[in-house]
C-alpha cells in the first residue's frame, strides 16, 4: 500500500507511537529522526527513511528503502559512523547523496545534537554529582526511639556509679583523698556493718578493666532484656504523669514567627560520599 494510505491510517485512525501532549504531537518510535509526529518524519509512513541512533555512545546511520519493506527483519541497514563529526558528516553525504534534501538536513541536525549531548554526558560522568536518595522515615525514627529507650533502660548513671564505687572499694585507685563525701560515708558504713551490697559479678574470669568509648552492653540479648524492663518503667512513669498534667504555656511570639523560608523541620539530610560510584549521596528522611 502506498505511503499516503498508510499515513491516513496512522494519523487519523490509530498509531501506538503517537503521543499527544498540550505542546504538540510527538512520535515515540525509536527510528524517528525528529521525534515529532509528522507526515515527513514518520518512519512508518515513509518507505524511504533514515535516522541516526545511539548505541553505547556509538552512532549508527540507519536506512530503509521500499525494496525491503516486506522484510521487517532486514528492513534497517546500519552503518557505523566515526566519532569525528566531520567524517560522520561526509559518510552521511555519501550514503544519502540522492535522497530528498529535507530528510538529509534533519538527519544532519540530529547528528549535531547527538554529538553535543554525547560530549556533555561524558563531561558529566567525570564530575561528582549529588544524588538524592530517600531513607525510609518510619524505620529511622523507630530506631532512634529505640536507641533512646535503650539508653534510659540501661540506667547508665547508676551503673557507672556502682562500678566506680566497686573499684574504689577494691582499692584500684590506691589512696585518693578527694572523693564525694556522701558516697565515702555510705561505703564506710557498709563496710562497718558488713553489708556490702551484693553486686552481680561475672564469675567467668578475672575482671578486666578496659578503656571504652561507649558503654558496651555486651550481647544483644542483654539489650533486649533491658529494653523490656525499660518499657515497663516508662509505662509506670506515664501513668503517674497523666494526672498532674500541666501544659507549658506557649511562648508568645512563636506564632508570629512564620515558617516560610525556613528549611523543613521534618527533613533530615545527611551527606555521604561515595567515591566508587562518583556521586555524593544525600539521604533525605
Amino acid at each position: 500500500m502506498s505511503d499516503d494510505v498508510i499515513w491516513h491510517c496512522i494519523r487519523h485512525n490509530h498509531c501506538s507511537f503517537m503521543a499527544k501532549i498540550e505542546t504538540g504531537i510527538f512520535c515515540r518510535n525509536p527510528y524517528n529522526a525528529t521525534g515529532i509526529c509528522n507526515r515527513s518524519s514518520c518512519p512508518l509512513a515513509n518507505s524511504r527513511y533514515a535516522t541516526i541512533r545511539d548505541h553505547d555512545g556509538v552512532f549508527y546511520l540507519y536506512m530503509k528503502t521500499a525494496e525491503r519493506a516486506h522484510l521487517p527483519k532486514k528492513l534497517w541497514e546500519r552503518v557505523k559512523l566515526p566519532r569525528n563529526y566531520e567524517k560522520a558528516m561526509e559518510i552521511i553525504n555519501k550514503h544519502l547523496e540522492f535522497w530528498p534534501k529535507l530528510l538529509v538536513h534533519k538527519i544532519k541536525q540530529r547528528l549535531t545534537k547527538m554529538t553535543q549531548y554525547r560530549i556533555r554526558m561524558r563531561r558529566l560522568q567525570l564530575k561528582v554529582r549529588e544524588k538524592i536518595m530517600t531513607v525510609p522515615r518510619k524505620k529511622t525514627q523507630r530506631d532512634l526511639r529505640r536507641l533512646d529507650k535503650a539508653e534510659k533502660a540501661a540506667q547508665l548513671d547508676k551503673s557507672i556509679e556502682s562500678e566506680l564505687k566497686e573499684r574504689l572499694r577494691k582499692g584500684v585507685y590506691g589512696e585518693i583523698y578527694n572523693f564525694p563525701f556522701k558516697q565515702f560515708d555510705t561505703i564506710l558504713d557498709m563496710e562497718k556493718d558488713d553489708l556490702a551490697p551484693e553486686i552481680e559479678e561475672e564469675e567467668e574470669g578475672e575482671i578486666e578493666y578496659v578503656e571504652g568509648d561507649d558503654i558496651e552492653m555486651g550481647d544483644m540479648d542483654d539489650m533486649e532484656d533491658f529494653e523490656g524492663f525499660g518499657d515497663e518503667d516508662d509505662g509506670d512513669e506515664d501513668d503517674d504523669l497523666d494526672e498532674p498534667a500541666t501544659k507549658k504555656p506557649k511562648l508568645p511570639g512563636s506564632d508570629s514567627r512564620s515558617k516560610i523560608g525556613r528549611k523543613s523541620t521534618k527533613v533530615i539530610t545527611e551527606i555521604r560520599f561515595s567515591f566508587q560510584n562518583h556521586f555524593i549521596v544525600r539521604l533525605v528522611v
Partner: protein
Amino acid sequence: MATTARPLVSVKALDGDMATDAAGVPMPHVMKAPIRPDVITFVHRLVSCNSRQPYAVSRKAGHQTSAESWGTGRAVSRIPRVGGGGTHRAGQGAFGNMCRGGRMFAPTRIWRKWHRRVNVRLRRVAVASALAATAVPAIVTARGHRIESVPEFPLVVSDSAEGIEKTAQAIKVLKQLGAYADAEKAKQSVGIRPGKGKMRNRRYINRKGPLIVYGTEGSKIVKAFRNLPGVDVANVERLNLLDLAPGGHLGRFVIWTESAFKKLDEVYGSFEASSSKKKGFVLPRPKMTNADLGRLINSDEVQSVVKPINKEVKRREARKNPLKNAAAVLKLNPYFGTARRMAVLAEAARVKARKEKINSKRTKLSEEASKIKAAGKAWYQTMISDSDYTEFDVFSKWLGVSQ
C-alpha cells in the same frame, strides 16, 4: 486492480521440514483490497454489539407496595405513601424515581435493541479490508505488534505447523519465526482489569498477540496455541473482523499456514471473479488504482502537460478616488489634462486682461507726483519703525510692523 504480476510470498519451513525449492505462493487478491479504516470502524462498532447479553432491572422493582397518595390537606407532598403503621416504612414515599425504595426513572427493559444488523456485503468488505491491512508491516507496527524479527510479511508457515500438538512446541515454532516477541509482550501484559468488570467474570485483561490462521478443518494446531495468552487461532473460512481489527484498529499480526494462504483466493475471490465460498461476492474496487498522489503528480505524463509555475504574484491595485486624485481622473477622462490646462491659462489671461483694463481706467499720476508719493510712503515706514511705539507688543501688532 489489473492482474499485474503478483508478488510471491515465500513459505517459511519449520525445523524438521523437508527442504523444498518451492518458489512461493502468489499473493492472494484480498491483500490488495482497498484499506478502508472508516468502513472497519463502522462495521466493528456494530458487530461488537452482537455478543451482548441483556441487562435490566426487575419488572416489579419499586412497585411491590400498595402505596396511595394522601392527597392535599395534610401538609405533606402528594406522592404516594405507603399505608399501614408500626414500621419505619409506613408513610414513606413510594413509586417515584425520587423516592427511596422507589422504581428508577425509565426502568431498563430487556426488549432494548441489543444487536445490530450489518449488510452482508459491508461485513465482507470490512473483513477484506482488514486482511489487506494485515499484509502491510507499517500498519501492523503502528497497531503495536512487535514484528522487528519477522523475516517476511505476510508471514506464511509450512503446513507442518498444523500438526503441532504441544504448546511447548508451539512456543518453539513462534521463536523460530521471530514472532515470539509479540506473544511475549501479550503474556507480560496480563493485569487486573480496572472497574467493576473485575467482579463480573472479566477479571484479567491482556494485549493481543499474533493471530494464527490455519486451513484444514480439525487441525491440532488449535489446541496447541489455545493456551498462549494473547494468541488467537482461526480457520480461514471463518475469519472474524473482531479478531482481525481488535478494538477497531487495523493491522493485527497474522501468521498464515500455507494451506490457509492458498485458500484465501477461494474464500474471497478476486476483483473480477467472484468467490466460490461467498456467493456473488467480488472484492471491492478502490477509488484510485494508484493512490500515491505524490508519484502521480511528479510523473512524466502529468508534468509534460502541466503549465509552468507562475512565481509572480499579482496583487490588486489600491483604488484611487477620481474626485480627489488627478491621476485617477486622468485614467477615466483623458481630456481632463488639456481641459485643466486650458482652464488655467484662460484664468491667467482673464486676470491679466482685467488688470490692464482697470489700469487703463485709472488716472495716471505724473512722474513727479508718483515719486513724491513713494517717498512719503517710505518715510512713513521709517517713522513706524523708529518710533517708541514699537517697543510695546500691542502697538506693534496694531501698526503691523514686523521687525
